[in-house]
């Protein structure tokens, strides 16, 4: 069985290769829309690379890129297409699924193939729960008709180089009426995904300058600082946030400081080994999800914590 993988994100691409090998793929093909170097890199991980040179397409535009991806899929015969579940990937997968008349599923954390077809685990109810979903009635219906699954980052170990796949160039002829005016690159997060200790600042932190207090605590614990969504998306104090719609973390120790613990945040910290929280409100939902809680004002508790950690 052929499984195709596509992600513009290099780390996630490697995770998809691992996911594909867990599905017992007899052949793994990568779809690459990018540079020649991107195609050569992908060749080290998969049996074959089908490659559209992005210089013929320009920067990422969903409608134009999905044409390219569609040509790639049709040039091969995958039964499953695994797409990296980023904003770019999710959009392409959903549009491609319409073009191919095959189902797509997003937010996938695990998959397997049974007699009934492709079964996946995806998050449900905004990350509160996990759903087991059957994708499509059967695996194989017609040529170039893959079931499409968008896999979330961080659930499979990145694959190692092990192949020297052949690269085949696929041509596209796409006319576009959309213009890319500007691309504002974002800073990347502070290595939150792989950190052993993550200290998250929430709205309880009153001013941007006060983040230094949280940084001091993180330093004392040997960890990195993250923030909740409002601190990043609304107040722009940090480039990324922790949670379901941001970065999912799985540290040995998570510390939430002035974090209320709304479900969308909890969904991204659930895999932490130990959860600790500091909050003035004894009824804050985070305490239900915490192993250890300190009810108190972070401006008093955190300096004391740092002092006692140092001594």
């Amino acid at each position, binding site marked *: 069985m052929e499984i195709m993988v596509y992600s513009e994100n290099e780390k996630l691409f490697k995770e998809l290769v691992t996911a594909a090998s867990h599905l017992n793929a007899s052949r793994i093909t990568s779809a690459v829309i990018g540079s020649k170097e991107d195609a050569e890199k992908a060749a080290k991980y998969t049996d074959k690379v089908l490659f559209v040179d992005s210089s013929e397409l320009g920067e*990422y535009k*969903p*409608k134009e890129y999905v044409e390219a991806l569609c040509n790639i899929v049709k040039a091969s015969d995958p039964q499953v297409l695994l797409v990296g579940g*980023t*904003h*770019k990937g*999710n959009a392409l*997968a*959903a549009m491609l*699924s319409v*073009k191919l008349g095959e189902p797509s*599923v*997003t*937010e996938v954390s695990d998959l397997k193939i049974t007699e009934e077809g492709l*079964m996946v685990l995806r*998050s449900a*109810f*905004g990350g*509160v*729960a*996990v*759903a*087991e*979903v*059957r994708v*499509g009635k059967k695996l194989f219906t017609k040529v170039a008709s893959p079931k499409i699954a968008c896999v979330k980052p961080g659930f499979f170990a990145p694959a190692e180089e092990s192949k020297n796949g052949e690269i085949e160039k696929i041509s596209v002829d796409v006319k576009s009426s*959309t*213009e*890319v*005016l500007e*691309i*504002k*690159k*974002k800073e990347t997060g502070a290595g939150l995904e792989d950190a052993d*200790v993550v200290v998250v600042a929430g709205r309880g932190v009153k001013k941007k300058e006060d983040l230094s207090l949280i940084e001091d605590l993180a330093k004392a*614990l040997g960890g990195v600082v993250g923030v909740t969504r409002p601190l990043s*998306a609304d107040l722009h104090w940090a480039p990324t946030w922790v949670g379901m*719609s941001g970065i999912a973390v799985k540290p040995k*120790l998570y510390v939430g400081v002035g974090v209320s613990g709304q479900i969308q945040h909890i969904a991204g910290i*659930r895999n932490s*080994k*130990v959860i600790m929280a500091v909050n*003035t409100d*004894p009824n804050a939902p985070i*305490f*239900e*999800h*915490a*192993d*250890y*809680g*300190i*009810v*108190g004002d972070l401006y*008093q*508790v955190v300096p*004391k*914590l740092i002092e*006692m*950690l140092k001594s």
Partner: protein
Amino acid sequence: MDIIVCIKQSYDVQQLKFDPKTGEPMLAGAPRKMSDMDRRALEEALKIKENLGGTVKTVTVGPPESRDVVKEIYAMGADEAFVVTDLKLDKADPDLTAKIIVETIKKIGNFDLILAGAASTDDYSWQIPAKVAALLDLPFFPNAVSMTVDGGLVVESDLGDAIYKYKAPLPSVVSVSLEINEPRIPTLSAILKASRKQFTDFYLQDLGLEVVTELEVRKVVMPKVERKNVVVEATDPSKMEDGIKKILDELRKENVI
């Protein structure tokens, strides 16, 4: 500018209860609310209308309870709401929902722009607006953090690694993020007036569609992570040190510090 906004009446996931024995969600009669990002999509449409004139129409697909969202849609200021309901639509998959939305849009007629939330509060699948765009063969711009339509459509899409600023043709489909705006809170008199306004109620037969799904949800459970819930009181400065010491001792025992 004639705008169509896709609005889902989602489960209020914050309030969802789970059966303590089976871990399954208790969905019967569970509270629902207008999906968070859809409220922003509607706000954005209303702002465009206030600037440029035109109409704002909404499409809602779902089980019969979904009709409850109409009052709020009108109270915020939409011109006309279209609702497609069926008991079986609680089990709809994204392909079916997108098809129903598209067939409804075809009934509504002319439009310049389709707005939606980037992801719904309950399913959070990031799929329906993209599928609507693909079915209509329109350009799609996901997760907009800002947009203007005066003198052509300009959209800033947050695509994770960067913010992409597009100059896009009309009509297009744009899905919006939580941050794009702060939605208005309707006044009491607007709410009262809204409850008397008529809306168009379609059934699947009206659209020539039936419930056929390719995604089948087999089981939903809440992953149960047992937590110790050891909480100490540190509001009183005299007790603070003891409390913190207790927690630090525990963390050392856990071998995490």
